[in-house]
């Protein structure tokens, strides 16, 4: 097989048609007549992390709360290190974007007075099983937006430090697309599959975050020299055992407490309850020999049980199937919980592109939104909408008066040569599956995965760094037999780039700020005197170089200067 190049042009290219990407496209169409291409690796109807649906909107300013409260909560939960400007600008938009998606057809629970019914201080209840089809349907009605499904974007095209487009290949025909654009919005999501997952072989992909979110956006940015932030704040989710289904629905929905095998409620023994402490306390109870740990559901009513069955069918159907096929629902038996492998995901924690307040990255013409954008944890679905909207508005402003810049012929030829090399490589000893397994084993053992209780130290990170670099060299010798295999090779290369940056970040923060997420055995205490700052990085000349930056406050308008 040999990919032939084909040139296409657009005003704005959106890479990834998930939550943020679709909302960005809708916003551009509302505010301009710019031509837009959404390049999507799968099909926007069910792509990204919302494929199965979502059970609640977890970022909403409910009655009696304010955007300021939202910022305070998020900042405390993240132990003080967030981009306040980013979190606050999202918080101000949460309710407006929620109304917009309700108008598109999302069902939101209301009381008799027509007010949304809240679940706690920041959440509202929905039927989100079809949230992606709703978004995809809205996008399909936009005359200036072209969706190209099954198009895998692999790298940005730059000229004089400015973005001028991206390269991608089709999963159906032997074509390497050279897309020229005045601006690019990256909305590819976060990265799963870096670490050895909970389930072995056959069910290895039964993970919380989408296994098809492979960190492509991060990796493309890293290779292009974009500044990244806070990769060391990994996200580790507390999940139902085996199915890796969410636990918040049970914990918040019916108020179930976390208990150990002795029936003791243990979370309160580990300080103020925070997202990372819920996880940390469970790890510690297991290490003390007090596992398995559970959410205490036994004794709930039959009606509550039926409601849970339905809630899980709308987002994680494997959990309902598991309850029913084992003949023991949550009313009869407590739900066992465990921690997942670590993910890099900017919608939950703060890893991702270092962006200004308008969502511009450090590369001129490149914007980022959603899970791929850093600095603002707990944005969830509605925060991704809000950020998609802001990136879109900024990109529309940027392209005014700009013309399309064509890439240099020799650059295109070089890229085509590099891509086609995977078809002409000799079949060697190793397959892409072996490289992926090796990467996950290294990260698990040496960079704080499940088997090491999420703990790492500098000596281990040095081993991880060396071995990940070796794997990256091996991966360029892999052979692809078809377009799907070519995609898998690019995915593993992207993950290795993300791992390399992650390892540098883990080693750079010489304290422990977020238990389990970033558990540095060399520096087990939180150190506010030295580490109330962001750990950022930039990749140049083959090395990840760390940059430390001061905290940005709520009313600051942050602009990239150096």
């Amino acid at each position, binding site marked *: 097989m040999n990919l032939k190049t084909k040139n296409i042009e657009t005003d704005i290219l959106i890479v990834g048609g998930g939550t943020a990407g679709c909302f960005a496209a809708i916003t551009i169409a509302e505010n301009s007549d710019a031509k837009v291409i959404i390049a999507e690796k799968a099909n926007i109807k069910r792509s990204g992390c919302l494929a199965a649906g979502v059970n609640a909107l977890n970022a909403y300013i409910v009655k009696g709360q304010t955007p300021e409260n939202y910022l305070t909560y998020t900042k405390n939960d993240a132990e003080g290190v967030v981009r306040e400007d980013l979190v606050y600008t999202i918080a101000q938009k949460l309710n407006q974007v929620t109304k917009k998606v309700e108008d598109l057809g999302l069902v939101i629970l209301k009381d008799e007075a027509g007010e949304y019914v809240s679940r706690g201080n920041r959440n509202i209840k929905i039927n989100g099983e079809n949230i992606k089809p709703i978004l995809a349907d809205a996008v399909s009605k936009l005359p200036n937006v072209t969706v190209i499904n099954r198009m895998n974007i692999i790298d940005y095209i730059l000229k004089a430090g400015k973005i001028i487009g991206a390269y991608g290949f089709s999963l159906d025909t032997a074509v390497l697309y050279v897309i020229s654009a005045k601006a690019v919005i990256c909305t590819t999501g976060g990265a799963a599959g870096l670490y050895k997952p909970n389930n072995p072989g056959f069910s290895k992909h039964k993970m919380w975050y989408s296994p098809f979110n492979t960190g492509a956006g991060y990796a493309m940015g890293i290779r292009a020299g974009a500044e990244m932030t806070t990769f060391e704040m990994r996200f580790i989710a507390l999940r139902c055992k085996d199915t890796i289904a969410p636990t918040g629905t049970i914990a*918040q929905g*019916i108020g179930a407490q976390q208990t150990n095998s002795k029936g003791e409620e243990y979370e309160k023994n580990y300080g103020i309850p925070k997202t990372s402490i819920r996880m940390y306390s469970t790890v510690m109870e297991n290490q003390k020999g007090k596992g398995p740990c559970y959410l205490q559901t036994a004794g709930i009513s039959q009606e509550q049980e039926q409601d849970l069955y339905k809630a899980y069918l709308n987002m994680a159907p494997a959990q309902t199937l598991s309850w029913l096929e084992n003949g023991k629902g949550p009313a009869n038996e407590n739900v066992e919980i465990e921690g997942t492998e670590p993910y890099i995901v900017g919608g939950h924690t703060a890893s991702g592109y270092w962006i200004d307040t308008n969502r511009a990255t450090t590369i001129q013409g490149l914007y980022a939104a959603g899970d791929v954008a850093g600095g603002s944890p707990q944005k969830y679905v509605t925060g991704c909408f809000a950020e998609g909207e802001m990136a879109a508005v900024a990109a529309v402003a940027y392209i005014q008066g700009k013309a399309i810049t064509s890439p240099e012929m020799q650059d295109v030829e070089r890229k085509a040569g590099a891509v086609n090399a995977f078809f002409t490589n000799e079949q060697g000893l190793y397959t892409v599956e072996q490289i992926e397994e090796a990467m996950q084993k290294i990260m698990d053992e040496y960079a704080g995965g499940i088997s090491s209780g999420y703990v790492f130290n500098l000596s281990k990170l040095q081993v991880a760094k060396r071995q990940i670099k070796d794997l990256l060299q091996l991966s360029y010798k892999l052979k692809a037999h078809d377009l799907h295999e070519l995609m898998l090779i690019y995915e593993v290369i992207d993950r290795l780039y993300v791992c390399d940056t992650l390892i540098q970040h883990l080693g750079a923060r010489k304290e422990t700020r977020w238990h389990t997420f970033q558990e540095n055995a060399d520096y087990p205490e939180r150190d506010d005197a030295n580490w109330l700052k962001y750990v950022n990085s930039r990749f140049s000349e083959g090395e990840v170089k760390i940059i430390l930056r001061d905290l940005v406050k709520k009313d600051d308008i942050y602009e990239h200067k150096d």
Partner: protein
Amino acid sequence: MSIKIDIHKCTGCGKCREVCPGSLLAEDPAGKTQIKYPKECWGCTSCVKECNFNAIQYYLGADMGGKGSYLYTKQEGQLLHWIIVAPDGSKQILTIDKRQANAY
């Protein structure tokens, strides 16, 4: 975690192939759909909900405690029926009205 496709029920319409977020489904020489990469399945049920012919059976791997049950779905206007079939053939049906939000 994966799916099994009943080739006797599959009509080869291809709707499931279009939506799979992992591009894991392919057309076999007879024009039917096959799951080409069963271990890569995330378990999102996107394909199951596209199939109007009950041809896709969604099941838990033995490594997840699966014991031989499977599920499929049936759309009926605003209703989505989830049908869970036990190894002895007995069925349980859970019906979700798409117009209603979750209780939790």
